[in-house]
């Protein structure tokens, strides 16, 4: 074989890949950072890198359809006079009316109620649709205080003070003008059509010592009835959990970096925070060090997709999990039936994340009445209920196979890790070894 004009073929840079080049051009052309919805899209160590050790000779499994495996959980048992009892340990995360359409909020309430769990308001207040269709509703207390009022505070079943979220620990929010409709503007007391900037800190307290006094005020206003949750983004989970407990939380909600958001800077979503997998053990350690594990409940969120994820989070020490993005998919978000419309928006089903633009073909992340009407809240609620029940059955299947009669009896020792990274982050041994990097010797 002879070579004519031998030459090196064109080679693209790994560092300056196509995505990077496109983003540089976009930034240069528009002069605004990329804003989008959803959570981190980069590949991260996750629950997929963990496996369960089912029972065989040394442990005895439970019979799938006959022997009980309890899934219920009580939240807010530390101080609240009226703790919450949920049938399943999978709750619906905070998503605002504004970010989501009224029909989507109604569907979340219907689905969660049918499955025996709670749903959560968001940055924008409580709507009647949501309250009326949610058996158990958690009312978020956010820096913006949009729509905050004592009547809704008292008709909530629990109050979640949002200090941070996994998509943007340390950041505020941004709802672009297209979604500030008349009703959203009125609820938030803002002029219609402007960009709504949400603060990153609360307006009337900073730090856990002042938060303790804020919590006391909220408890006094609600006569110590409601559980008080504190939601933090996964950044420094040990300290943040410990301080939430010291400030007086009944429940800590810990949101890893795969947790979604309605809209924030892409650079924030992809570069700030820790993977959910890495957040759980330090948070549980903080609770254990304070003698508060299971007394102050831990809800973990950020990339929970299946009953296996639920079981893994609980084996690592969570009392419950919370889903946002997955619940939206169950409602109909990013459904391939709208592929042509996604194409017209310059994207494809499965990748659509311009939730802030309000053009969602599925009628979920929009305030456009015509689009919102596409989502049938009864049918979508049914889909969500089905999905929640499947996840619960899956988690039970795994727990029974590990010999547990309650999901809360899953332990880290029921797990092994497929990768060294996951072994280090989840503090469980690498499969086939006793090695937990950073804890034991190989």
């Amino acid at each position, binding site marked *: 074989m002879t070579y004519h004009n031998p030459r090196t073929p064109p080679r693209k840079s790994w560092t300056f890949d196509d995505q990077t080049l496109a983003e540089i051009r976009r930034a240069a052309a528009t002069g605004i950072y990329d804003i989008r919805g959803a959570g981190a899209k980069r590949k991260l160590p996750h629950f997929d890198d963990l496996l369960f050790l089912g029972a065989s000779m040394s442990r005895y499994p439970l019979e799938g359809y006959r022997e009980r495996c309890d899934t219920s959980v009580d939240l807010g048992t530390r101080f609240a006079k009226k703790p919450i009892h949920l049938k399943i340990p999978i709750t619906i995360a905070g998503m605002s009316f504004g970010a989501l359409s009224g029909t989507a909020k109604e569907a979340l309430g219907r689905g969660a109620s049918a499955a025996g769990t709670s749903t959560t308001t968001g940055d924008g207040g409580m709507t009647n649709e949501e309250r009326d269709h949610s058996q158990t509703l958690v009312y978020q207390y956010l820096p913006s205080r949009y729509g905050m009022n004592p009547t809704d505070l008292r008709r909530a079943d629990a109050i979640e003070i949002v200090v941070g979220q996994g998509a943007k620990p340390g950041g505020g929010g941004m709802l672009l003008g297209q979604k500030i409709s008349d009703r959203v503007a009125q609820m938030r007391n803002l002029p219609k059509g402007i960009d709504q900037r949400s603060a990153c*800190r609360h307006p009337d307290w*900073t*730090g*856990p*010592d*002042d938060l*303790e*006094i804020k919590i006391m005020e909220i408890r006094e206003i609600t006569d110590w009835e409601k559980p008080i949750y504190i939601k933090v983004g996964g950044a*420094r989970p040990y*300290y943040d959990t410990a*301080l939430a407990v*010291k400030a007086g939380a009944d429940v800590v909600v810990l949101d890893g970096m795969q947790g979604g958001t309605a809209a924030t800077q892409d650079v924030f979503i992809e570069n700030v925070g820790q993977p959910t997998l890495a957040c759980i053990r330090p948070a549980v350690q903080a609770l254990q060090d304070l003698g508060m594990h299971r007394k102050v409940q831990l809800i973990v969120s950020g990339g929970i997709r299946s009953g296996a994820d639920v079981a893994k989070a609980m084996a690592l020490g969570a009392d419950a999990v919370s889903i946002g993005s997955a619940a939206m998919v169950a409602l109909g978000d990013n459904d391939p039936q709208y592929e042509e419309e996604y194409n017209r928006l310059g994207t494809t089903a499965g990748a659509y994340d311009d939730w802030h633009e309000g053009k969602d073909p599925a009628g979920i992340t929009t305030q456009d009445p015509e689009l919102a009407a596409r989502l049938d809240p009864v049918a979508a609620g049914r889909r969500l209920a089905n999905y929640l029940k499947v996840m619960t059955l899956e988690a039970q299947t795994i727990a029974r196979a590990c010999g547990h009669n309650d999901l809360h009896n899953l332990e880290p020792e029921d797990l092994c890790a497929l990768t060294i990274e996951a072994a280090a982050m989840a503090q469980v041994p690498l499969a086939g070894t006793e090695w937990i990097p950073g804890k034991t010797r190989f």
Partner: protein
Amino acid sequence: MCGIVGLFLKDRSLDTNLGQLLSDMLVTMTDRGPDSAGIAIYGEETAGRSKVTIQSDTPDVTFADFERRLGDLVGKGSSLRIKDTHAVAEVPTGRVADVRAMIDGLDGAVRVMSVGETMEIYKEVGLPKDVVSRFDIRSMSGTHGIGHTRMATESAVTTLGAHPFSTGADQCLVHNGSLSNHNNLRRELKRLGMRFETQNDSEVAAAYLTARMKDGLDLGEALTSALDDLDGFFTFVVGTKTGFGVLRDPIACKPAVMAETDQYVAFGSEFRALVGLPNIDNARVWEPEPSSVYFWDREASASRTLAA
């Protein structure tokens, strides 16, 4: 993340009440910090002599041994006053360096809380009421004092991690807030020869001020330069042998209330801390401004407020 109190007496007839007043102030701030508590008292001065306040987790055995070593080292010119886990060694000022070297040779059995001609620091893990009673703070008299109750943020809950922090003779600092550049600053100060006992952000602030004062700045000037060099959230109350200062960061989110009468200047994280002070109903009460240095010095003719 904490509660701070401070009291600087102008009317020396109140000196015998200092410990009592400051203890009551600190105990009211308990809710702000359940982890540890501490107090610095500026008391009597004996010309040519200094106090080294030390702490041990095993005071029963350690202090007896320490007293013997101190006698061997300094001779009759020394004394040791034991209070629970703390003890105050009084030695000629010229021998302080020798005493510290001896302590360094004890492999951590004894920790130095403070060194100074008038200042003593008492701090332990626990609630203010317990710390105050363990060390009988209420019976102490003095010219000024500073107290702190801690809700630990990132560093360990230990005796050494409690406030006040002292990094120079008769200097102490307490902090409410959270610094965000303390790791880099600690490395820089270490390079300059400062010594650190903890990973605590507040200790870095104390050492920073000590380093600046070593450079020849007075307390007010050192606090002013802190505004440029410290990043994060802080309300500081600091003491020197004759002075008392307050500084809040430019954002000034952490609470601070001050009260002044002809008899005293007082600081509290909350007004609750001040309600028991004499004649508080007629005091001038105000909230210190952000980025403004407030300090009082009994050797200077008047107090000073420096707008940065």
